[in-house]
């Protein structure tokens, strides 16, 4: 957890998107994804507008295209599910490559794939340009209750450490010839999970004692005082306004 190990999705860069205040970025990302979510599926052009706006942000943030595409693989299991829909959905059929597929099912597949891809890209841009502590600061300023953001702070702070502990336990098991194939051979793994919980909890007790001895009173000091300026809010509003306009235009023309 040293410097430069922010989290696996963060890309160290200096760009306008990186320096934007986190609360503005969070609100903009959520508004953009909401606008995408309400866009009617038949308005293919609206999704093209959204994708263009998002591509501009990716370019502005200097995120490598290869990095963004590689991270998009996270939606793959749902895309596989979406690809099955035309086969099981009801409704009239269209012939595609000799297969009778449901027309409504094909639209549903397109709907899920388009919205999931745009949504995941938005999340990747957010995570790729914002360090986790700043995300949590932004959440606090957006009114998320402090206990939640504090739990998240401690979780992020110790996640790598706990995960490494888990890896060492696994290495130790493999070194002793443990090679499970079936569920009934899983007892050492489960016992390891129990031991890991006890270790994590006891570490929490020690951390808490250390904090008390250093004057912890129940509130964390805020080190980053910078809040979003009007200009930053305005800049952040760009992509969601474009997406919302496209969504409204699509809804109006469809009605």
């Amino acid at each position, binding site marked *: 957890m040293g410097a430069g190990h922010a989290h696996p999705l963060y890309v160290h860069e200096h760009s306008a998107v990186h320096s934007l205040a986190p609360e503005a970025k969070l609100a903009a990302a959520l508004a953009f994804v909401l606008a995408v979510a309400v866009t009617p599926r038949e308005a293919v052009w609206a999704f093209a507008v959204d994708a263009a706006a998002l591509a501009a942000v990716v370019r502005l943030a200097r995120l490598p295209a290869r990095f963004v595409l590689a991270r998009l693989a996270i939606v793959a299991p749902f895309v596989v599910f979406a690809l099955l829909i035309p086969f099981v959905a*009801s409704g009239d059929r269209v012939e595609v490559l000799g297969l009778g597929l449901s027309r409504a099912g094909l639209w549903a597949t397109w709907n899920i794939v388009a919205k999931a891809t745009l949504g995941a890209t938005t999340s990747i841009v957010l995570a790729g340009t914002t360090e986790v502590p700043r995300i949590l600061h932004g959440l606090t300023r957006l009114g998320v209750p402090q206990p939640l953001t504090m739990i998240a702070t401690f979780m992020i702070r110790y996640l790598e450490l706990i995960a490494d502990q888990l890896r060492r336990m696994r290495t130790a098991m493999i070194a002793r010839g443990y090679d499970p194939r079936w569920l009934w051979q899983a007892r050492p793994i489960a016992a390891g999970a129990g031991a890991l919980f006890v270790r994590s909890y006891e570490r929490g007790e020690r951390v808490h004692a250390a904090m008390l001895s250093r004057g912890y009173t129940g509130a964390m000091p805020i080190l980053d005082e910078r809040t979003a300026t009007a200009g930053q809010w305005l800049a952040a509003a760009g992509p969601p306004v474009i997406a919302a306009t496209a969504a409204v235009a699509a809804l109006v023309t469809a009605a």
Partner: protein
Amino acid sequence: MHAPDGFLNAGTAVATGAVSAGAIGMALRRTRETLLDTQVPLAGLSAAFIFAAQMLNFPVAAGTTGHLLGGALAAVLLGPATGALVVAVVVIVQALAFADGGLTALGYNTLNMAIVTTFGGYGVYLVTRRLLPATGTGVVAATGVAAFASVVLASMAFSIEWLFGATAPVPFDTVFAAVVGVHALIGVGEAVISALAVGAVLASRPDLVHGARDLDRSAAARRPAVGMRGFVIGAVLVALTFAAVLSQFAAPGPDGLARVASETGFAGSGQPHALSDAILSGYATAGITNEAVSLAVAGTVGVIITLAVGYGLFAAVGDHRRGREPRGPRAPA
């Protein structure tokens, strides 16, 4: 389980978001005295543990692996309110910092994976504890039942959300049978790992198991001596029985599909009401007739076929023992 954006419609996203926020608010109120004063670092470390536990691969069959969801485990170890907060934080951070699950999907992802698994799982835990002796064995067995139920309840919650917010004209009963059926199998792994993990904690720090606070040390020390093979076979039998019972509700199957297709013709997502009406009427007519036995058989056979196909697939792909960890048979929903 980490659904992306656009999987359910915007109305469902907003409604489930409101329910999740309400549940988290309730959990915050219930934990206020303890949490702000002493437990924030403990809850944070527990959240890190749950996050790490979700990376923990365990063997399922023939060298394939699955991984833990951890909702019921968190509820039994930390109590339902703290457990819900901890798992909710995990889900939210996964969406914001790891792009795992959509931002507008946070409402239903949090509801299914954090709220339903912890509160639902703990409810099942409490009921099961009443039926079992007040010993360590009872705690471990009840944890297993609760963990199984938590996964199944989460998949049921997803199916019900699909009923209201489907973005595709796939009938509710098809989704219900597929999603719940797959998760009944996943639940067996969740049950075995959660139960044994709680057993391990009971052995070293019984005071850390929230669900066993009522036991004294000697009662908590009385723990199972049943062999693992027997335990797993028992769990699979429970899953088969469950599938047989469940199929009674989920079974209108092809019948329901045909009805929707013929009655509504084109059941686009613009007419979700037409769709759900047809299904509900299907429910009403699917009473307990002599169909029941055949449906039970169908459900059980379905589970066995799923097991066999899963085994065959991974046997065909080859030996996964060495080399990289193969991803487990997690359902894409």
